[in-house]
């Protein structure tokens, strides 16, 4: 019924000994598209923005406002990580609307890579904000007995961050495939519209959870 199992990956081509999958090619395409769009539309940035530039500024300001609402501190040091995550995830999740493309987040490798980035960024930001000693001490709070649970939660929350994004995007692809199999014409369109909502919502949730993790690392009193 399905062309391939959702847990395996089709290899697009080989780069020497390294297999390059279709998801990786889509990721590169998404990155190139975002970079090219920003480079072209911001070629001559103006103080009084017009059109595309003001649209981008509204987007960035909205992301910054969201970060500030969660962290309750200056959002701009966290903007490179959080903003990039959100913009990349939205474009990657919505790449399914281009015929022939599958969202790279529907394969487990892309969410895993993003989750690893979040995992290391959280610790780096926490250490740089609070110092190594104070950062490590927060694992012993509120009681040193809870150290194993604190360490375990660092791993499980990142794992569930990965599985959530992967599971949602992949299950939606399977739903589309089943509906296409049952009735091919026009019937899948409402499901595809739902897919737009799911894609944006999952990008938002991934970003907000990454922000919450960063917030818990940089400021213990604000741990969520």
């Amino acid at each position, binding site marked *: 019924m399905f062309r391939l199992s959702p847990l395996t990956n089709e290899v697009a081509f080989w780069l020497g000994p390294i297999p390059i999958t279709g998801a990786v090619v889509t990721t590169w395409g998404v990155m190139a598209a975002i970079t090219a769009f920003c480079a072209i539309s911001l070629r001559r940035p103006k103080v009084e923005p017009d059109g595309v530039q003001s649209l981008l500024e509204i987007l960035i300001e909205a992301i910054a406002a969201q970060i500030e609402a969660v962290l309750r501190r200056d959002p701009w040091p966290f903007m490179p990580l959080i903003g990039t995550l959100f913009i990349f995830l939205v474009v990657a999740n919505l790449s399914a609307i281009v015929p022939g493309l599958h969202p790279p987040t529907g394969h487990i490798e892309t969410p895993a890579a993003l989750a690893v980035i979040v995992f290391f960024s959280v610790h780096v930001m926490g250490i740089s904000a609070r110092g190594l000693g104070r950062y490590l001490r927060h694992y012993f709070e509120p009681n040193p007995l809870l150290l194993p649970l604190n360490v375990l939660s660092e791993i499980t929350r990142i794992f569930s961050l990965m599985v*959530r994004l992967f599971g949602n995007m992949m299950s939606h692809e399977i739903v589309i495939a089943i509906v296409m199999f049952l009735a091919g014409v026009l019937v899948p369109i409402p499901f595809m519209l739902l897919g737009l909502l799911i894609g944006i919502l999952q990008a938002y*949730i991934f970003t907000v959870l990454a922000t919450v993790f960063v917030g818990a690392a940089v400021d213990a009193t604000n741990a969520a």
Partner: protein
Amino acid sequence: MTIQMISVIGAAIAVSFGALAPAWGEGRALAAAMDAIARQPESAGTISRTLFVGLAMIETMAIYCLVIALLLLYANPFVGA
């Protein structure tokens, strides 16, 4: 019954119970959030953001069940490759 047949039944059970309980939990969370917004419309922004994060947490349980069902169907460790 072969292992494949048992795996299909197991996948169906995993998905059905994995849908049942999170749906109930999400319904309760949503009802509570609606109640809170109706009482305090000015804090709707904070409530919806927390609600989304919470719903994502709850939904993760359903996604775990789905992943286990898919493992049973496509990558069953008990069936030789």
